[in-house]
């Protein structure tokens, strides 16, 4: 049965509001976790800052350009943190057999499963990332036009799909193998490497990080559209498409695993 996007958004909104309400009722936990998340971001920034106290530039990338990349990666990694956190619990539901309980609703299974958890802590990262981008943008003297901002938003959203896709695929391995936590954890660690310009790597690893584990699409390629408008490689323009394609494939893979699983698990 066809359900419109509006229908799904309304349901998501409702679950979100309730979820936040119930989290607020554990106030001290909520506050401490949020402070912890902010600390993580500040610490990440401080180590970045310390590093560049010693070096004026890296491989032709200035401090503010690197800062831009850093902010870009923070923002594009926010959706996976906020919206798809339930992927971390997937293997537990699958082993215990509790996953079957998601299969009987008249709505999309993937949506229904992911909608259950919204990790509000990620919003701190979003704010921090946006702040970093704005600061770097101003310092770099980049023009502020509607087109630029539009580009920025489109490229941020599509870039965020890459990490979501990687995480979906990694989480879905639990439908086949037992140690999926390590796979998920490994993929999760990739995100730390997304903030560096791919040009620092040797050609072999450039290839790997572009086509095999496409983390270069989380920040590097999409950022070029804004940072180096004179020499944008084809891959940068393709990055929105690549984001969409990867997301779609990971969704299909996830659903395939879910269907296969519910068909066999007792």
């Amino acid at each position, binding site marked *: *049965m066809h359900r419109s996007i509006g229908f799904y958004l*309304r*349901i998501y909104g*409702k*679950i979100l509001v*309730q*979820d936040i309400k*119930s*989290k607020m009722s554990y106030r001290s936990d909520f506050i401490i976790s949020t402070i912890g998340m902010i600390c993580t971001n500040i610490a990440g920034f401080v180590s970045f800052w310390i590093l560049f106290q010693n070096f004026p530039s890296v491989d032709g990338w200035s401090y503010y350009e690197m800062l831009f990349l850093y902010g870009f990666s923070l923002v594009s990694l926010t959706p996976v943190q906020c919206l798809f956190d339930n992927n971390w619990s997937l293997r537990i539901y699958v082993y215990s*057999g*509790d996953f*079957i*309980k998601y*299969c*009987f*609703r*008249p*709505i*999309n299974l993937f949506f229904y499963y992911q909608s*259950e958890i919204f990790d509000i802590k990620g919003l701190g990262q979003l704010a921090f990332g946006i702040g970093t981008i704005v600061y770097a943008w101003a310092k770099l003297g980049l023009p502020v036009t509607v087109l630029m901002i539009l580009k920025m938003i489109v490229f941020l959203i599509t870039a965020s799909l890459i990490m979501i896709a990687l995480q979906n695929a990694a989480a879905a391995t639990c439908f086949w193998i037992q140690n999926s936590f390590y796979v998920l954890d490994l993929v999760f660690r990739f995100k730390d490497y997304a903030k560096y310009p791919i040009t620092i790597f040797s050609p072999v690893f450039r290839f790997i990080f572009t086509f095999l584990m496409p983390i270069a699409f989380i920040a590097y390629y999409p950022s070029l559209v804004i940072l180096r408008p004179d020499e944008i490689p084809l891959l940068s323009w393709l990055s929105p498409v690549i984001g969409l394609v990867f997301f779609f494939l990971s969704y299909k893979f996830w659903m395939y695993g879910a269907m296969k699983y*519910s*068909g*066999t698990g*007792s």
Partner: protein
Amino acid sequence: MSSIQIKNLTKQFKVLNRHEGLKGSIQDLFSRDYKTVTAVDNISMTVEQGEIVGYLGPNGAGKSTTIKMMTGVLEPTSGEIIVGDVVPYRNRTKLAQEIGVVFGQRSQLWWALPLIESFRILKDIYRISDENYNAMMDFYRTQVDIEPLLHKPVRQMSLGQRTLSDILAAFLHDPKIVFLDEPTIGLDVSMKAKIRTLIHALNQEKNTTVILTTHDMGDVDALCRRIVIIDKGKMLYDNDIAHLKGFFGSYRTLKVRMDGDLQAHAEEIRKEVDFSVSADEEWISILVDEEKEKVLDVLGRLQHTHNIRDMQLEEISTEEIIKKIYEEGVE
């Protein structure tokens, strides 16, 4: 109108023959070494709208596989299946609108949310109109003391309260068919009674078809007129309980009490009579088929060998019938 129609339904699984060791597990990734397991073997049945059917069988009999095929989660290997008016696995989402599912120990409600909020989300998901929603809630209020539950997060509820809530949630969108999988498992006696009354009332009021799988014969006695029994994927029985009891009409349960270790006594009696013997803390039960030997003759024989202090005579219980069918089948 019939609510479920199943004809020659069969489900086979291909199971990989697993190899051990690191090399073995790599082999398994590419292996085509399968064996076929038949979980459901040529089952046919028709369920009318409004019936409560007890779907029974030992663990691993194929009950949950059948339920999964009826709910559209699983595609049959062969045979026909129509639930409501759709083929389940082809229209899973459409069917989901027409059915409700409850698992005794797996709550489908939002863990952190108060029950009322779960209901409101379900109202949106199933697109229940305000009118129908309010009518249903009003009906619930007449049946159970729901107010104290409504504002309690599900995770703070007892198992009984949670099961109750799950059943209410499953009936909320007025489904045509509800599947209840061991709804009373792990509950105390009074909660079991409460839940049976609720299920009965909902079935009566809404004419909902209920498919009930359970190991608790109390559920069956309280709710089902018809039972279906399967074992090893094959259907063993499909008819009224009354009919089944008539079938075993010549059986009586003779219960005797004596001093000493009842288990040891039961062991001795087992050698002396030709019937199944069991013992609990108080009684030794002997299931006597009067066509073979009269109860009084059995009792007379036992009196010579044992010091019987007390005795009772009972009709065969549903529990014993089911046990007998599991053990011997219906001839």
